[in-house]
């Protein structure tokens, strides 16, 4: 057979100069982020802009926590899409399933790093959480369900869903053959195996959806259950977290899908997939904007004095620029997404712009959830505090983006980021 010359599909195993340059650049930025962390570890968190709430007039949770929430939010999209494809038979979305699953995994790894950045004693965190964690603490869900359970579930899903492709690739000679063989783990594509996979994928999807809502809710409860922090204590916190998670996750997924369509050879992501993503993003975004209005109205109409203070600070005070920038980025995204529907085209440019904007908006909103209630929401009259992140926190945050992108582009070179086309078969024709 003349397979020696046949390249693997979707550019797997084929490294171009541009790709190597990107890998090097991203690795450098990611390492810069870890350098920031090493400074934080050796000198203490004094190198961050965080300070104690109260007499010290600071915020004790800042950018790190905002990014924990953000990254967990981004992870939402992947596995949800994968589950929805199974449960709702959204065949048009099949080509983006793999990248969605991969996005979930890398986003959760980034969230894990963000948590470590935020701990004063990260090493103890690793041991003591497994040893002593208390179910009564809202953090319990964050690290058992989100970081451990959700990450593990996503890996299982990614692994099982990739086996058929791995088996196909393992039959082609390449330097990565051992890896594909390992992944395939004896998969031969017999009808029995396929039937089994369809069954497990269905049940995994069923199991993952409730896990997903619970996991994102527990993160909302971290804030929503705190009676001592005006602006946090709200029943809306958990559902709003789930929604904003969907918004940022879908936004990130759109951006990645467009990049894949443009750069990966032969990658065919149908227009229908983008139409679906755009509409789904629009719906979630509108729902989230509705939540925002409800929240603001509740807090300013009668709200307790401190609730009003925090809200006033958001709308007109120190945090107004970030707040209105976030609102604007959401509003513009809504406009772009509607425009795309009206125009009836695919509107990739509009979609990417909206995807990036909603992520910027989501980062802004996460920051605004975390910080103002600490600097301006003390129930005792401490006076207002302030918080400005330092370069350490910025470089850590930027490093995580580079880390995620690095993992994704490396993954795209060792495994097809788009599932291989298969001959249509009974009941599952695309």
């Amino acid at each position, binding site marked *: 057979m003349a397979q020696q010359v046949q390249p693997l599909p979707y550019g797997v195993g084929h490294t171009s100069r541009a790709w190597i340059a990107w890998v090097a650049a991203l690795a450098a930025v990611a390492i810069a982020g870890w350098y920031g962390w090493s400074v934080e570890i050796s000198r203490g*968190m004094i190198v961050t802009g965080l300070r104690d709430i109260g007499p010290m007039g600071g915020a004790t949770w800042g950018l790190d926590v905002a990014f924990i929430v953000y990254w967990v939010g981004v992870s939402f999209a992947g596995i949800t899409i994968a589950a929805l494809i199974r449960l709702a038979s959204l065949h048009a979305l099949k080509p983006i399933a793999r990248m969605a699953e991969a996005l979930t995994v890398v986003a959760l790894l980034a969230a894990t790093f963000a948590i470590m950045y935020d701990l004063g004693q990260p090493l103890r965190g690793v041991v003591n959480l497994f040893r002593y964690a208390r179910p009564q603490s809202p953090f319990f869900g964050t690290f058992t369900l989100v970081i451990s359970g959700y990450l593990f579930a996503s890996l299982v899903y990614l692994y099982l869903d990739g086996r058929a492709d791995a088996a196909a690739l393992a039959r082609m000679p390449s330097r990565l053959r051992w890896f594909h063989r390992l992944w395939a783990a004896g998969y031969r594509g017999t009808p029995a195996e396929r039937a089994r996979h369809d069954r497990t994928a269905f049940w995994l999807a069923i199991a993952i959806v409730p896990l997903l809502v619970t996991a994102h809710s527990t993160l909302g409860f971290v804030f929503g259950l705190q009676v001592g922090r005006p602006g946090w204590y709200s029943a809306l916190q958990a559902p709003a977290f789930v929604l904003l998670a969907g918004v940022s996750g879908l936004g990130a997924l759109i951006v990645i899908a467009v990049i894949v369509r443009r750069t990966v050879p032969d990658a065919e992501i149908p227009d229908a997939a983008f139409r679906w993503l755009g509409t789904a993003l629009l719906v979630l975004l509108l729902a989230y904007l509705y939540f925002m209005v409800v929240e603001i109205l509740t807090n300013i109409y009668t709200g307790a004095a401190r609730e009003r203070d925090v809200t006033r600070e958001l709308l007109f005070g120190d945090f107004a620029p970030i707040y209105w920038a976030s609102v604007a980025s959401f509003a513009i995204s809504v406009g772009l997404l509607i425009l795309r529907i009206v125009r009836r085209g695919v509107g990739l440019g509009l979609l990417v712009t909206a995807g990036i904007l909603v992520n910027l908006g989501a980062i802004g909103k996460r920051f605004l959830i975390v910080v103002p209630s600490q600097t301006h929401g003390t129930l005792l009259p401490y006076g207002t505090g302030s918080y400005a992140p330092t370069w350490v926190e910025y470089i850590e945050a930027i490093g995580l983006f580079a880390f995620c992108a690095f993992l994704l582009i490396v993954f795209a070179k060792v495994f097809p980021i788009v599932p291989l086309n298969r001959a249509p078969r009974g009941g599952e024709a695309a």
Partner: protein
Amino acid sequence: MARYGMVIDLDRCTGCRGCMVSCKIENNTPQGSYWMYVFRFEEGEYPATKVRFMPRPCQHCDNAPCVKVCPVGARYKREDGLVATDWQRCIGCRYCEVACPYGVNTFNWGHPEEHYYFDWNAEDVAPEVRGTIPAWDNPSLDEPYGPEQRHIAGGGHLKGVVDKCTFCVQRVEEGLDPACVQNCPVRALIFGDLDDPESEPAKILERRPSFRLLEEAGTEPRVHYVGGAPPTSETRQIEPAKAEV
């Protein structure tokens, strides 16, 4: 078993902040972290303004939000009513700090210094303190402590963990009053066993109307205030709280 608590007489407090100083000396807390803090308030509009003072130690709540949220159980409630921090278990997530409505938790942002205020072993100091062991140098605080056999903050201010007021547990266990109580020149702070009707704080609470801070938050503090009134939303702090660390 004794269940300790504190009564703070706001009619007596002169806002001298002697309690804050003695707390710092006793516990060697880093700059900017106040286990005991005295608010200096201003109320009303000129010319009808009024100045008030309000000391704020840890409230040692019976339903402490910090204990509830601690992910690893480093914050715990002792049988004697004290809320303590196991600095050997704390992972430094600072959840207790955001959960506490009173703002009493302090984090060790950097490496600790051995003595922030004065060296107890220095030539001119040693004769004055006559061999007293300060809390930060107290070997028993480096060991599991008390009936709970858990560590208790007050020792070394380890980098990256949370500290807070301990009611000077190392003094209370010896039958002494906390440092702030001991040093208050006007006896505005009274410490004792609130379960014992014969104790001084219990008698005061029997006699005079009292309030607790932010009772609506359901935290059930063990610090009671008599005289004066709780701060309202009209209350302004005179000095903006801001400490360089």
